[in-house]
């Protein structure tokens, strides 16, 4: 899922400082699961902003709504009536949701309440970790199911570099060396010989370096 983390409230407040009434839109997708932008978080943020503004003698009226998803046009359509009479829309979705709202309601001031961080999963209650670099050309079958693109600080394909020691990355003792993990796993699987093959330079055009990407499934297209 996409992991996002709410911005400091004062930063969000600053974006809507000149608004009297705002719509806060939560998202029931990834950000609900990572507990940063679901229904509850949306209400907590609304309440916090209201208190803050009342304390400043400039009360803020809030409307809250949590969309099933903000990354599909049909779920945003239902917001039309709520958007009409607000001065701004605060999205608690990932960056995709913010953009979908801005595209749909192009004359409305739409602002992000979150910092979209990464694609990952939870490793313990309340702890999420990055797992996928979204490179567009998966190589996990060559690296024992451990992604060096995102889990190695240098995204090295023929690791580990000389900074790997005691299983940790040179950048921090709290960061596992992805290549140590890959080595251990490949060794356990009896596939160390695979690590001796020189991995060629990656085709980054399939990643973000090739511009915004598109996936098309003609068989499910309508019309």
């Amino acid at each position, binding site marked *: 899922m996409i992991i996002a983390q709410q911005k400091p409230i004062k930063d969000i407040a600053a974006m809507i400082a000149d608004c009297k009434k705002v719509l806060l839109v939560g998202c029931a997708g990834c950000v609900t699961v990572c507990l940063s932008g679901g229904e509850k978080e949306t209400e907590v943020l609304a309440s916090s902003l209201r*208190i803050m503004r009342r*304390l400043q003698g400039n009360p803020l*009226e809030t409307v809250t709504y949590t969309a099933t998803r903000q990354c599909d046009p049909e779920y945003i359509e239902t917001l039309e009536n709520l958007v009409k009479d607000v001065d701004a829309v605060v999205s608690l979705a990932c960056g995709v949701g913010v953009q979908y709202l801005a595209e749909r309601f192009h004359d409305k001031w739409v602002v992000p309440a979150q910092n979209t961080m990464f694609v990952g999963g939870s490793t313990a209650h309340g702890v999420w970790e990055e797992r996928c670099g979204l490179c567009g050309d998966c190589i996990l079958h060559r690296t024992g199911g451990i992604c060096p693109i995102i889990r190695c600080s240098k995204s090295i394909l023929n690791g580990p570099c000389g900074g790997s020691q005691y299983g940790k990355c040179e950048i921090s003792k709290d960061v596992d060396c992805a290549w140590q993990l890959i080595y251990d796993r490949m060794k356990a699987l009896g596939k160390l010989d695979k690590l001796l093959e020189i991995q060629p330079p990656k085709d980054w055009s399939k990643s973000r370096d090739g511009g915004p990407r598109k996936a098309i499934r003609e068989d499910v297209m309508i019309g």
Partner: protein
Amino acid sequence: MRLQYSPNIRIVEMPCSGTIDHRVLLQAFEDGADGVFVAGCMEGDCHFQKGNYRAKKRVNAVKKLLDEIGMGGERLEMYNLSAAMGPRFAEIANEMTERIRRLGPNPLKKQSAETTEKEGDVA
């Protein structure tokens, strides 16, 4: 046992301190409470195993939030005591009342005298 404690305390009963939610706490302040304390069971004595530990974590998170938004986290506190500790309850009630007196009334009340609050929630 008839114990005296500050008459300004209003008790909101909940099945377990573990059901405390950020929203409930914030709402109390929005509705004008000068301070809130959450009374959970003694640590280790939760009927639902960890309800009071969870409550404590949430209370701490909301304290931080209150600091962030200018309300002040000191207005909120978590206490642990059992149902059999009447005198301790009275003591906490008085202690909290003292603390809040020192902090003064909920600053929102000054504002709400001037403006009326609108309920905005639709979801």
